[in-house]
């Protein structure tokens, strides 16, 4: 009995945390997404009245969700965000995997130094790092002046406000989130397996392809999710570095909330975004637990 009580006490804090900071806000946003826009403070109509402790006179409807289907703007924003997040994750994986591999294979002394270098950027605000990138990319910035001085280019390159700026900034910002889980799986990899594989006549490439890579799959999945999920909702990078034509759901959400002051519609955009992210994740989790 005491044992069981202890167990409950241990799991209570995380549950309370999730309830307070995830579930309740979630229902607040969901409730607003069912309401109607109105000129007041806050700018939406309540969807029910309180009868003592019980809600009555429920008036919410799905009108806002239907509106999202009517205008192709929203679907295109979602698709474009998913595309951006997908390719950023791929580039992060391509850049991050070799780095994680080298760190995992390095001597313990080097390993700590290298890991520190990966984590170091997190000590400054990501906003400052983005401003630093803006300084590098701008027409009179570091990259353009250097290239002009060496004589590789004769006219400054347009780097800011382009797709390149957004992709590279997302990759640079999120790269540590890819490297760390990859490193932790690669580092646990049993070297005897590689030895065995080479004893059995596999070339180094075959060993990597057939032993290392499959065994590091959990790290790949974790890293990709850690990059992909925040990248989908990314607002700051496309807003500061993207061209005007870049349609991303974060910016669309901003327009709904700030320019149209339409909190109900903005809330339904957010709900759909959550669904877009959560449903594939649950599917992935189910697929994984089925395999285990």
């Amino acid at each position, binding site marked *: 009995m005491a044992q069981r009580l202890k167990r409950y006490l241990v799991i209570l804090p995380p549950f309370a945390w999730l309830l307070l900071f995830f579930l309740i806000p979630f229902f607040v946003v969901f409730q607003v997404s069912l309401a109607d826009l109105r000129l007041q403070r*806050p700018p939406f109509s309540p969807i029910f009245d309180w009868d003592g402790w019980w809600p009555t006179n429920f008036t919410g409807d799905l009108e806002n969700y239907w509106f999202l289907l009517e205008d192709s703007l929203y679907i295109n924003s979602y698709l474009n965000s998913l595309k951006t997040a997908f390719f950023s994750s791929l580039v992060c994986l391509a850049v991050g995997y070799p780095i994680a591999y080298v760190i995992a294979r390095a001597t313990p002394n080097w390993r700590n130094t290298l890991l520190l270098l990966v984590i170091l950027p997190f000590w400054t605000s990501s906003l400052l790092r983005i401003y630093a990138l803006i300084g590098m990319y701008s027409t009179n910035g570091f990259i353009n002046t250097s290239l002009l001085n060496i004589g590789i280019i004769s006219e400054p390159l347009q780097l800011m406000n382009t797709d390149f700026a957004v992709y590279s900034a997302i990759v640079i910002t999120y790269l540590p989130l890819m490297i760390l889980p990859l490193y932790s799986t690669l580092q646990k990899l049993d070297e005897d397996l590689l030895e065995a594989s080479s004893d059995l006549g596999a070339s180094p490439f075959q060993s990597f392809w057939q032993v290392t890579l499959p065994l590091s799959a959990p790290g790949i999945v974790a890293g990709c999710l850690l990059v992909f999920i925040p990248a989908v909702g990314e607002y700051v990078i496309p807003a500061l570095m993207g*061209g*005007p034509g870049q349609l991303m759901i974060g910016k*669309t959400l901003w327009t709904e909330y700030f320019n149209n002051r*339409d909190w109900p519609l903005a809330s339904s955009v957010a709900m759909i975004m959550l669904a877009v992210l959560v449903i594939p994740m649950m599917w992935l989790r189910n697929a994984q637990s089925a395999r285990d």
Partner: protein
Amino acid sequence: MKLKTILMATAAVAIASPAAAEGTLNIYNWSDYIAEDTIQKFEEKTGIKVTYDVFDSNEVLEAKLLAGSSGYDLVVPSASFMARQIQAGVFQKLDKSKLPNIKNLDSAIMGNVAEFDPGNEHGVVYMWGTTGIGYNEEKIAERLGDSAPTDSWALVFDEGNAAKLADCGISMLDAPTEIIPAAMNYLGLDPKSKNAEDFKKAADLLAKVKPHVRYFHSSQYINDLANGDVCVSVGWSGDIFQARDRADEAENGNTISYVIPKEGALSWFDMMVIPADAANVENAHKFLDFLMDAQITADITNYVWYASANIPALELIEQEILDDPGIFPPDDVKEKLWVAPVYEARADRAINREWTRVKTGQ
């Protein structure tokens, strides 16, 4: 300089807080929109500790106000936004018995804003200005020659001109209710129209120009214009004058000019108002009255190059500013200026949707 202003304001707060007993005051104003020493002088005079935060769009301010409990005691929306916020019950009425300096204000200008705030019950004019064109004289002359239409919206809204200026950089405010009406004005439509068809015509024009526009942003252009990173900006008058000053100070060979296009331009009034849930109402009134002091207003205008609505202050404003038709326009230019209408939710959605179409092509 924006950073400098913020730093100065913060430093002023840090140094001059001798009498916390006098209480605090939280102000939310536009960026680059006050003299360097205004806050410090107020703190020295009253002992009130001021926290001064800045924003660069009416939309951001409105979102905070509508959410409630913004924590600010004094905010500065433009008049057309204020009108809607008054309807939403966001502001409290001013206690004019605590504002003896209100007699300094130009009754003609206060009459103009009474359209948004009947009886001027909620707000007083902070500064006013226009949304026109700032341009880099050398770079424009290089690309368009002497016949460049620098006195017309055609400089940015004509596709041919925009194409020639694309390489040196065109920027526009990210403010649909300022750019779309300007395009309507260029097309000969009524810029105060709230008709979705008119928005669409303006957006079609802007969509043609858009490939040549480097970015839509409402504060970045001050630095970029000064540094030569962009050569034409559709922006706010005082911001462009600040860019001109910075370019002069830097002596980087860029000469910036501001023009109110001959077709007309939007004139806007920024209003000082007190949120209904402000905690320091008394101090907010003290600051309002302080700001309506002729010398204080004149100092601000001399620094930010926006026109004040303060009659006695005119004596104290630098001649160069008073004579500038971009700041204090002569009567024939004034006739062409228009004031933004109040957009209802439906018109707002329509104009913002067209704006998204301009920016993204979707």
